[in-house]
């Protein structure tokens, strides 16, 4: 795959000395969904703002579609669509006018067919003549997406696209994003909902205190860093974990009706076979077993905590 966005040692230091980005280097591949995760103030929005031209970086370089964001800003920005975190729309303007305005701003001639397609895709066509102030929060967010898409960008930055959106609408939004990916748009998504990143992203980048901690394929990351828990339901409850099973660091659960065994999925041996044998030798009858994979949220919290330590 080719990198459509290349970030090379990008830094941003504000006048008060606050370093929002520190030597950030990152390649974003064409057609992927990259989730940029980080706690509040980690530098997610600053990174997006620097790439889109809203903030001027103090050092480093970045290219979009091979165009430098400073020297070739016209070509670079023409390829980018940005959906900001805050809902910023002119309240008295009609939906269709504000979308057409965005298309013009990005140097594209009027195309009613395309604007209609974008508005229909986002379920906004029926609202096209409504004033922005008449729309709900979720609809306004869709208008922001329509504005970002109407100039046919190849790279779309979605900065917290589902913040403040109800669960149903959030799922709808995920469908929209998946549809965009299918149409070949590269998507960079920042989100607080790790469930969202887990459901949609191909790769995960974790940023904290202006530094990229890791960039990795989501499945690999979860396999590598994820831990699994084996729950063993016992036929008869036990008062304590037998001493002979101490090496397995078992946890007692459900009032002695279950034992929990944590193991590393990346390890060569999980120790499950030996544990089951040891349980049989101890005379404990197993009624049921189930496994649970740790979520991206647990991995993320672990990474950020590690970085803070």
């Amino acid at each position, binding site marked *: 795959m080719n990198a459509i966005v290349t970030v090379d040692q990008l830094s941003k230091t*504000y006048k008060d000395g606050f370093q929002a980005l520190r030597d950030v280097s990152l390649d974003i591949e064409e057609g992927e969904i990259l989730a940029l995760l980080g706690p509040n103030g980690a530098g997610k929005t600053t990174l997006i*703002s620097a790439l*889109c*031209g*809203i*903030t*001027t970086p103090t050092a480093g370089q970045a290219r979009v579609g091979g165009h430098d964001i400073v020297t070739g*800003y*016209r*070509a*670079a*920005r*023409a390829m*980018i669509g*940005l959906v*900001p975190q*805050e809902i*910023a*729309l*002119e*309240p*008295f303007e009609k939906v269709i*006018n504000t979308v*057409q*305005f*965005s*298309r*013009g*701003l*990005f*140097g*594209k*001639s009027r195309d009613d067919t395309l604007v209609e397609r974008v508005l229909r895709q986002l379920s906004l066509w029926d609202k096209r003549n409504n004033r922005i102030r008449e729309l709900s929060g979720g609809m306004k967010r869709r208008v922001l997406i329509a*504005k970002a898409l109407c100039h046919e960008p190849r790279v779309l930055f979605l900065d917290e696209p589902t913040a403040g959106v109800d669960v149903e609408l959030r799922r709808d939004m995920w469908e929209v994003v998946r549809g965009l990916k299918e149409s070949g748009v590269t998507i960079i998504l920042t989100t607080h909902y790790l469930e969202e990143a887990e459901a949609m992203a191909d790769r995960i980048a974790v940023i904290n205190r202006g530094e990229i901690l890791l960039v990795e394929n989501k499945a690999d990351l979860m396999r590598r860093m994820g831990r699994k828990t084996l729950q063993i339901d016992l036929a008869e409850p036990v008062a304590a974990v037998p001493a002979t099973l101490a090496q397995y660091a078992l946890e007692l659960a459900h009032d002695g009706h279950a034992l929990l065994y944590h193991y590393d999925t990346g390890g060569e041996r999980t120790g499950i076979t030996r544990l089951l044998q040891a349980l049989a030798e101890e005379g404990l009858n197993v009624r049921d077993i189930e496994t649970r994979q740790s979520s991206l949220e647990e991995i993320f919290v672990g990474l950020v905590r590690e970085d803070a330590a």
Partner: protein
Amino acid sequence: MNLHAIRAIYVYEMKRFFRTIFESLLSPVISTTLYFVVFGAAIGSRIEEVEGVSYGAFIVPGLIMLSVMTQAISNASFGIYFPKFIGTIFELLSAPINFFEIVLGYVGAAATKSLLIGGVILITAGFFVDLDIQHPVMMVAFLVMICVSFALFGFIIGIWSENFQQLQLIPLLVITPLVFLGGAFYSVSMLPEGWQTVTLFNPVVYLISGFRWSFFGVADVSVGLSLAAIGLFFALCLGVVWWIFKTGYRIKS
């Protein structure tokens, strides 16, 4: 050059103007009528002629200037301040456009609006006094230059302003007094000699004088000096706007 972007900004701003066309035009028409009633009929009837021109006609260029300057400033300053205020400025900053194109869109629209208002006032004035414009081409040229220069100035105020109060500050505290004291309702030659010298430090004197010359062929200062004053003001404003976009002053972090 991103012509589509310039057009998009221009059309968007003009649509805003036409959305409130009634209020936009009614206000200057009413205020001009009031000025004619007060200065033209009530006070003007006691003043015979100024520089060979009836007083009612004499104040027309000054009245147009007053409205055109304040309208150009308020339209351009609001045009760029509003996106800053509601946060939509991000779209301008992230679009493939440069400062010159942004300025052309906003300032072009604000200048057009003030030109239209200037035209409406001129027509309104025609109902009260007989107007015989001696240099119509120069009159239009002066009007266009003043509209564009003051729209640029308004654009700077819009960028500088951090709240709606600041947006009103300069038009109210600086422009209106300068126009009133710049010979809008009198000829500089009517002042005592010492005050005539003081008045010449008011840049608006040169603008009103040049504009009045295009109407009646009489001026307080030479036409060349008036043109130079507008040119200098325009260049200064353009320089400041260029610096704003180069440094990102109050628009970019």
